[in-house]
């Protein structure tokens, strides 16, 4: 059998599986770190948005508007090619994690803000009347309730982040998509390559999506 999906092509792909395994692990690694920093950015910016300082709020809104309304690929390209001209040379993993976290963080902040807003204001007032400071009330009373509301949409952002990590292929990121491009570009075996690359992304993203669906069900049941 000939054609892009011939038996020979499948054999060739599977004989080089370790090359793709390396890219897969790099994707997982970058995604996990990216997710960690996304949550931190999302939490900080989201909480600041719920505060009263107008200057801080406009700065946060500016950050979100910029990162939500420019393509990730351009942001990454700028970090890669323009920052070095300003004397800042980041390694590819650091750059990837930072790029993904700043981009996804802009969406995460929105989620955190609306989750906090969704907690009835009476909760905050009640905590205040018991002598909690603003931060104490946030940490002990508001955030635990907000997490339940914000977790399902946040999980969707995690899936987006993992898929978006494929953008790093354009700057020789060495992750899964880059491996697929490089390998198939060299020997022109694109059939099995992109099917299996898709399957590998599915392996990471599908469990998270299913988890999100379950969390969503649980949170609506409790309301």
């Amino acid at each position, binding site marked *: 059998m000939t054609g892009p999906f011939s038996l020979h092509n499948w054999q060739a792909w599977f004989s*080089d599986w370790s090359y793709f395994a390396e890219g897969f692990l790099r994707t997982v690694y970058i995604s996990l770190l990216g997710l960690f920093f996304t949550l931190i950015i999302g939490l900080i910016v989201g909480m600041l948005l719920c505060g009263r300082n107008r200057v801080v709020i406009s700065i946060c809104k500016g950050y979100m508007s910029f990162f939500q309304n420019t393509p990730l690929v351009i942001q990454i390209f700028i970090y890669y*090619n323009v920052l070095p001209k300003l004397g800042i040379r980041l390694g590819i993993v650091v750059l990837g994690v930072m790029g993904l976290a700043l981009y996804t963080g802009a969406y995460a902040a929105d989620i955190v803000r609306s989750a906090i807003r969704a907690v009835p204001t009476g909760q905050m007032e009640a905590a205040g009347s018991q002598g909690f400071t603003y931060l104490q009330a946030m940490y002990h009373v508001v955030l635990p309730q907000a997490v339940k509301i914000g977790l399902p949409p946040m999980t969707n952002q995690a899936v987006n982040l993992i898929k978006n990590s494929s953008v790093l292929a*354009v700057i020789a990121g060495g992750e899964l998509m880059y491996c697929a*491009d490089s390998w198939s570009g060299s020997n*022109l075996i694109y059939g099995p390559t992109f099917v299996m690359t898709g399957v590998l992304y599915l392996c990471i993203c599908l469990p998270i999506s299913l988890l999100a669906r379950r969390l969503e069900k649980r949170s609506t049941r409790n309301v």
Partner: protein
Amino acid sequence: MRKLLSFVLVLALALVAFLPALAEDSADVAAIKERGKLLVGVKADVPNFGFQDLGGEFEGLEIDLAHKLAEVILGDANAVAFTPVTAKTRGPLLDTGELDLVIATFTIKPDRLLQYEFSKPYFIDAIGLLVTKESGIKSFADLAGKTIGVAQSATTKDALQAAADKAGMTVSFAEFPAYPDIKAALGAGRVDCFSVDKSILNGYVDDTTEILPDSFSPQPYGIAVKKGNTGLLAVVDDTIAAMRADGSLDTLVAGWTLPAVDWAVVDEMSVTLWEAAAALAANPTDTPAPTTK
């Protein structure tokens, strides 16, 4: 006797004249004739090979080849439709039948010969190295431990890796989707060297960069057709052979200010390539894995 001789001569001439007409067109060539247009995938961003100007017109050595093939197959040099292709699209577009031919600085490699039919080479070019002047890199040896930027789907990496192994030095590679991306990465100091075939590299030299004197194994360019379209392949191969024989291919190459081709090297290389492909077909798991960066 004389009459007989002239009769035989006339008969022979008639045969020669009619033989091509008698030969049946293969299905793939017949399909092109029925359509009345030759569909060719070309590069749009490689000066002197396949380049689309601001007016949308294509020009270059590979464009001229496409016109010549349209003339041979359809009798009309302008019965050709160009589609710009990238390294990622040129293969699939052949498989889906949206293109008849791909003439797009496509390097022939043994493992690629298992995926598509390739014509014999119409051009050959050595690999060159472009570095920034301020880097102080003066030769290939200075690149030990450095990163070389190459294009995805180019054979540059394999050739340079082999040269580095031979010299006992380690180099790493970063692959990019397009040549301008590599140039940008060189300018930003992301890679220490931009490497691709010399005639392409010439288009990227500026005041701050220079091409090193080193040259590496020549890369043969071939015209690709879908696997199994051997009728079309034969026409393409015959046309290239004829253009080599009458010197028109050399004239075209010189006309695009490209370095003259040493056809003896090309023929020798072709034999090696097709033999290696046959060996690979017998044992698919031998496909060498690319080196990770």
